[in-house]
């Protein structure tokens, strides 16, 4: 499984894409495979301040549930409302239409603490060693 090299990753299996002054957050294909079919995503309200590595939402799959962790702190400027009608987008397009929130980061340097795609792949291999 290849992980896009333009994204940065957390140990909780979120990804982050930096676009201008904003970052988009979603969960990785590895996460969706572990979860199975996603049936509901609980996301924060626009305008809420969230803290790095604190839970900001919940993803419910048929068989399991998982918290979503904020890769970086910041203000929520947009949430993916299309997941309300179609949560399966998270399974089908985890790096595209299945994105979850957009943040205005409080401290963009927090991005540096996240993993590159190579780091993340190595992390997953170690997890399964």
């Amino acid at each position, binding site marked *: 499984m290849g992980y896009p090299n333009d994204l940065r990753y957390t140990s909780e299996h979120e990804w982050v894409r930096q676009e201008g002054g904003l970052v988009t957050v979603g969960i990785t294909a590895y996460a969706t495979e572990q979860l199975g079919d996603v049936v509901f995503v609980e996301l924060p309200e626009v305008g809420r301040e969230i803290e790095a590595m604190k839970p900001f939402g919940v993803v419910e799959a*048929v068989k399991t*549930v998982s918290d979503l962790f904020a890769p970086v702190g910041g203000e929520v400027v947009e949430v993916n409302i299309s997941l309300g009608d179609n949560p399966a987008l998270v399974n089908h397009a985890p790096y595209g239409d299945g994105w979850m929130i957009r943040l205005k980061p409080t401290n963009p340097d927090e991005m540096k603490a996240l993993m590159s795609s190579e780091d993340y792949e190595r992390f997953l291999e170690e997890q399964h060693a």
Partner: protein
Amino acid sequence: MPTSTLKHTPFNAQHRAAGAKLVDFAGFEMPLRYSGDVREHLAVRQRAGLFDISHMGEFHVAGPGAVDFVDRAVTNDVAALEVGQALYSPMCRDDAGIVDDVLVYRFPDHLMMVVNASNVAKDFAWLSSRRPAGVVLEDRSDATALLAVQGPRAADVLRGHVPDAALDLGYYRFFAGPLFGVPAVISRTGYTGEDGFELYFDPAHGAVVWEGIVAAGQPVGLEPVGLGARDTLRLEMAYMLYGNDIDDTTSPLEAGLGWTVKLGKADFAGQAMLKGQKERGLARRLVGIEAEGRRVPRHGMTIERDGRAIGVVTSGTFAPSLEKAIAMAYVETAVGAVGTAVEVVAGTTRIAARVVKRPFYTRGTHR
């Protein structure tokens, strides 16, 4: 547990070839899912699904007194079984706690008990300790492959590959006959709420039967189905999962299995305690819970009413056929009537829910 120490069923290579996600279940490496829980679930409700349930245990009980022995060990009426008939039953301790929930098959010269994979050793020890002289109890779990074909098109999948008489079997009837040319026990049973068959045969023929069913099922859209969808299918029917909904500390009456408890039959384990429970009434009962939104009540979550804990969730899932979050929970009898509004404690939030009738799904084809 490292993969290498897990037991394999006769179909492990087939699961790998089909791209299944494999998990440890009761010490076996089992398919959790192939294509996806929802797709597999709906295939069974609408067409047909193929399940490997070879991890389950099979005991043979023979010798004079075998029927009486099993009848005393379980709560349902084994003595009333005809040859070629099977039944579902709890097997209780003397304190009415459930040792296991089992199937009992009556053959001309012996009985077969089908037990949960996680309970094989416990059940065998339990039965051995009560076995009278003359009764032969044998664990044939490793010598038995077990597949289930379930769904409204299950009979179409097997047509031409089993004797026609197998397709005329009534629910909970079985007979011994060829399956893709292989000697088998063909049983019209299942745990999905749909019509279907459970097929017992020699593991040496595993590949022939698996490939045969997959090929025969292709025209009707049969899919292999993993433990994930097996759980959502059984939970929509409010069927028990041992270890979650029932265990050594729950009684069959509390679990709503009163229909399997024949208090009037001859002596059986747990009888006195169960009679007492029936006379005194039950402090708690296993009820159906339906959530208002899509947050799912999960195993172990507390149920509250008016801020007071009144019960605990035993099983919960998103139900693909109903598109709702459902659960089962032990709830205080006095406050758990159908229609009661409750809250399920999910971490820092509360899931609004209410007590509903079981089963949740009522449009199945089982008969």
